[in-house]
């Protein structure tokens, strides 16, 4: 059966704590951290962007499965912070892993679920035998305006999955999607920061789509929550995914491994990829995983996965937890500099 052949992840090595951000705005850091269940978030360095993160994660995935560029027939990168409005991220990733020129590539945008749409595309192409392997990447260096609630959670990171039919470490048993026109969060062309509908982003947006998609996925699979070892959903903050998972009937033990937002913030398109990578880092053959992504605008992609025996032979060192444990705290001034929030003077 087709599925995940390999996976890679990347989390920047800096983080800022919620209390530090709150102190700049005269807000109650403890209250913000508790209300969002986000205590720190990753901060990309000044030389990091969606492309560098995508390349790092993809190189890790290629190395883990001893793949080279010739094995890759497609690369699709999902993000809402592609460095270029016109010029694909995916071609640069392809060049960096020596997969050019005999492949197809494109960038996707569907808010935070563009990467999982890329998985579905690769799955279709592999299933149709158009390609041997395709790479789906979910990555973001998300934007939160200074002083906005998003600033407490918008972070950076990403994952890269090789989707194929041979040497599969986790079969994708089935996938389904739940899509509507729901304007909960958006950024118009040329705007630096997104706008959001406040509380509207909750019940009629995230919860409606994630819960509906999760239920559809389990109905199609003929499963119940107890049949799964893990669940990972999109995680815009640390509270929403817990409430969604519990509504679907899952327990702490099932969702805590993939719940990274309390420590690294909301990595947007990278969130489900990183959560799933953290699960694969420790998963055993036979483990079953439910993954449900969410993208504003809005839609959810659901995946029913089963880990295979192949995972036991994979070198799974340099885990997501290793990356998180290496993160160093920066202050707001450094964060502002790294994120280009300072107005610089001209130098002669």
């Amino acid at each position, binding site marked *: 059966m087709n599925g995940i052949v390999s996976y890679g992840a990347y989390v920047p090595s800096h983080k800022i704590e919620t209390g530090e951000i709150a102190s700049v705005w005269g807000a109650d850091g403890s209250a913000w951290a508790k209300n969002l269940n986000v205590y720190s978030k990753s901060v990309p360095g000044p030389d990091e962007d969606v492309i560098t993160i995508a390349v790092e994660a993809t190189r890790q995935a290629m190395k883990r499965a001893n793949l080279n560029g010739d094995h890759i027939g497609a690369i699709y990168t999902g993000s809402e912070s592609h460095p270029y409005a016109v010029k694909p991220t995916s071609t640069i990733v392809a060049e960096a892993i020596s997969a050019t020129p005999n492949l197809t590539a494109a960038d996707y945008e569907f808010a935070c679920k563009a990467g999982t749409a890329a998985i579905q595309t690769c799955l279709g192409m592999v299933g149709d035998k158009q390609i041997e392997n395709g790479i789906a990447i979910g990555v973001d260096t998300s934007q939160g305006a200074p002083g906005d609630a998003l600033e407490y959670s918008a972070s950076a990171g990403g994952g890269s999955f090789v989707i194929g039919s041979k040497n599969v470490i986790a079969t994708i048993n089935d996938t389904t999607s739940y899509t509507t026109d729901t304007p909960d969060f958006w950024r118009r062309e040329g705007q630096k920061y997104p706008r959001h509908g*406040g509380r509207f982003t909750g019940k009629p947006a995230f919860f409606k789509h994630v819960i509906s998609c999760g239920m559809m996925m389990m109905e199609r699979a003929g499963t119940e929550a107890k049949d799964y070892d893990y669940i990972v959903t999109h995680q815009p903050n640390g509270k929403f995914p817990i409430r969604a998972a519990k509504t679907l009937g899952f327990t702490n033990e099932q969702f805590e491994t993939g719940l990274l937002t309390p420590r690294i913030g909301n990595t947007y398109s990278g969130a489900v990829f990183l959560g799933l990578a953290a699960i694969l880092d420790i998963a055993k053959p036979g483990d079953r995983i439910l993954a449900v992504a969410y993208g504003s605008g809005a839609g959810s992609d659901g995946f029913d996965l089963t880990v295979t025996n192949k995972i036991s032979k994979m070198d799974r060192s340099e885990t997501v937890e290793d990356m998180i444990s290496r993160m160093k705290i920066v202050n707001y001034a450094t964060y502002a500099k790294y994120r280009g929030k300072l107005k610089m003077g001209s130098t002669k």
Partner: protein
Amino acid sequence: MREVSIIGIGITKFGELWDKSLRQLGLETGLAAISDAGITSKDIDALYIGNMAAGSTLQQEHVSALMADYCGLASQNVPATRVEAASASGGLAIRQAYMAIAGGFIDIAVVGGAEKMTDVSDSESSYTVSMGSDEQWESKAGATFASLHAMMTQSHMQQYGTTREEMSAVSAKNHYHASMNPMAQFPFTISSEAVSNSGLVSSPLRMLDCAPNSDGAAAVVLCATEKAKKYGKKSIRIIGSGQASDTLSLHHRKHLNQMPAIRVAAKRAFKSCGKKANDIDLIEVHDNFTISEIIALEEIGIFRRGKAAAKILEGETKLGGKIPTNTSGGLKARGHAPGATGIAQVVEVVQQLRGEAGDRQVKDAKIGMVENHGGTAATAVIHILEGE
């Protein structure tokens, strides 16, 4: 002058009604009120609409004709009038209909209030609400209603020793009442401690001192009392009505901790029916902030100036107390949809006087009062209602 009765009521649940448009809300409550009154569209002589914000939140003006149209009254060319006085829009719309019927110009009017406040961002809805303050002296200078009421609170605390605990008791009591109101936005109890420990908005006001900006609608059918019997429903008479205005900006007033327009409107309403404060069995007041409920009860004369907060803490305004106040949950817990609020307050008192308020029923309620004001009470409208 003819007597006027309320023969029908309708109300939606208040809250974040993202799946309902302004016109849907208006239609829903209008039909409910007409159905409750037992009248048909042909009986309606006029429509009055309370709405504050549609122009800025929905880019929709001319709301009166819109509502008449969507309530199926356009083909009958029913006169439709929009009334705007910030958060007093609903109460004032009732007063306009009351005067038209009392004056003999019409016999039956439907008065509806509807508002959509949550289809825009929090900052946009706050900006819209601030339009009810003085643009030149207040909103343009950065003053919000929270900050203006915070100054009123500080002044009240300084002069009368009003405490944090007393302020919190207002909100906790209103949530207790809302827990028995299925139409309330927040139908659950909260503790005084939770109010006192909620996030600071503008010192000393905390988040749970402040009413939300809600979506919602309410409607009543007013009828000349002499013709009300024809429709059979238990009618409630409007025995008193008063209105007053004051300086729009707070700083032009002599006292920061008083709302003179409420005092004057109440005096006029009492005078119009020969009643006094101690004749009132229950009251709905405009608690957009906890301090507003305290000051309103003092201005109306329910309690002496500087004494209301302590009486609230003692439980005198709680269901079962001496003068149950905001049995609906008030603006704080039932919700505050500016144009609909004044009408929703009247709906609550009508339900109480009919004996249809369920678990929150005030025993033997005969006379009820409604106080609705706009801004920091630059407009105040009072109605006194009496059951059969």
